[in-house]
């Protein structure tokens, strides 16, 4: 799975999050920050992570979620790292 494919999958998840301005999803890239760029309430980040687990067929470690940054590249890294573990 390429990084862009992961980003495309994340956008599909973000479209289901009502508290995000969907117009801002057009130009999303690895440097996009969920909180400062998309205005995502911090309480929604855990919901996004949980949906990513289901969509990409992975289960994150609690510690990885505790340390997760708020940029798109951070969760892309985590998804690919967790997938690689098998």
């Amino acid at each position: 799975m390429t990084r862009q494919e992961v980003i495309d999958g994340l956008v599909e998840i973000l479209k289901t999050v009502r508290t995000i301005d969907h117009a801002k999803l057009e130009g999303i890239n690895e440097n996009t920050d969920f909180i400062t760029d998309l205005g995502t309430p911090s309480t929604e980040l855990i919901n996004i992570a949980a949906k990513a687990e289901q969509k990409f067929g992975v289960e994150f470690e609690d510690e990885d979620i505790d340390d997760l940054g708020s940029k798109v590249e951070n969760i892309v890294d985590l998804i690919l790292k967790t997938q690689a573990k098998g």
Partner: protein
Amino acid sequence: MSAERRVAVVGMGGAFPTCTDLNDFSNKLFSNQSLIREWDQAVKYGKNVRSKVSGFITVEEMGLETIYSTILEDYPEIYIDKLNRIPAGNLSTADIGSIWAMLGSLDAIKMAGWSDAETQSEGTGVVVGSGGGGHEILRSAWYNFFQLGKKTRISGSHNVDRAMVYRDAANVSCLIKNRGVCESIGSACATGLGNIGYAYRLIKFGIQDRVIAGGVEGTSFETFIGFDSMQVLSKGFDPAQSSRPFDAGRNGFVCSFGAGIVALEEYEMAKARGANIIGVIDNYFNNSDGDGDMFAPSFSGQQRLWKGLIGTNGALIPDVVKVHGTSTPAGDAIELLSVVDILGDKNYHISAPKSQFGHMLGAAGSVEFITALLMIQNQKVLPCLNSENLNTEPESFQLSESWAGSKNALNAYRDLLPQETFEKEINRITCLNYGFGGTNSAVSISRDI
């Protein structure tokens, strides 16, 4: 200074079964209609559920839509406001009851005519509560954790804010951005009136100048089955005949849902800005039975309630008594006999709004407070629907040597209980509500003359 402060009601709003808005609610009430329907939720479970009727409100009827989770079975992830009245951020932290509280608050503030600066000041409080704690959000979240063995995070990060005891007040406060107090009073079926009474005291004692106050009971089948299991719900009548306070054939209350929110303001401030004064709160009083019984109504508790409300000089004698009147066998008889013990048997009338929409539990006191204000506005008495036949024999407890009240059968007070709306000069109304735990609440309101 604080002793001279008076409290005006300047706004009303809420959620009412089968009604599009407050005007629709008022029109249906004064045309003697019942808002009670057969409930498909109850019918679906067949003989496992005893009562089949309710004054319920669907998600769609409130202009909302449920978005279910894609990763959690049967979990309402968020409710969308299809009419764009509430921002998504506020909806994400709300259960159904909290959304009704927010919508009712917006309507009440609009009617009050408060500016944003007034609403968002330190002088404005929010005091709103609900009676029940269980709804489908918690049920689904717990089922997925306990039964399906899923991680806690799968149910998302909003199970606390959408289920905490004062969720209604918290959501309203976050929406309107007031800077005064934000609290909930919980007193079972007296909750709605208890919150208004507490709000009255906040203004009366000079702690707040304005308060959004009321009670909510969001539609919850989980709440319904709790009461159904107690065998206290009405059974065997057509929906419109199911709630029949004081009628000899009554066999339980109709479990209903709704929201009643009012905007209260210090009287002189409201008057000075030219606000429409819907009514003035004369006094609020509450107490406990003190007889150690969780459920049974108390004649002596209600006598003390009345004396605390109207005082010894009888200055607050009402033209109408808006009773709790649930349609339960024990509750109605004690209540009627306690009213006549204080007021006698003439020169006033009794109105029982639950006969039209059932028992809204934590919302009952506040929605019925609104019906009392509507009676003052319209100068019409709302009826005791279905009070067709009153018992011609004394109740069994009236035959006891220890009984201190009237020994007349309830039928002796037939003339106090109108079965249809009628016009009358109404200057003062007493509102009564009681709750499990032996809690009693009463408020007296007057027309602003």
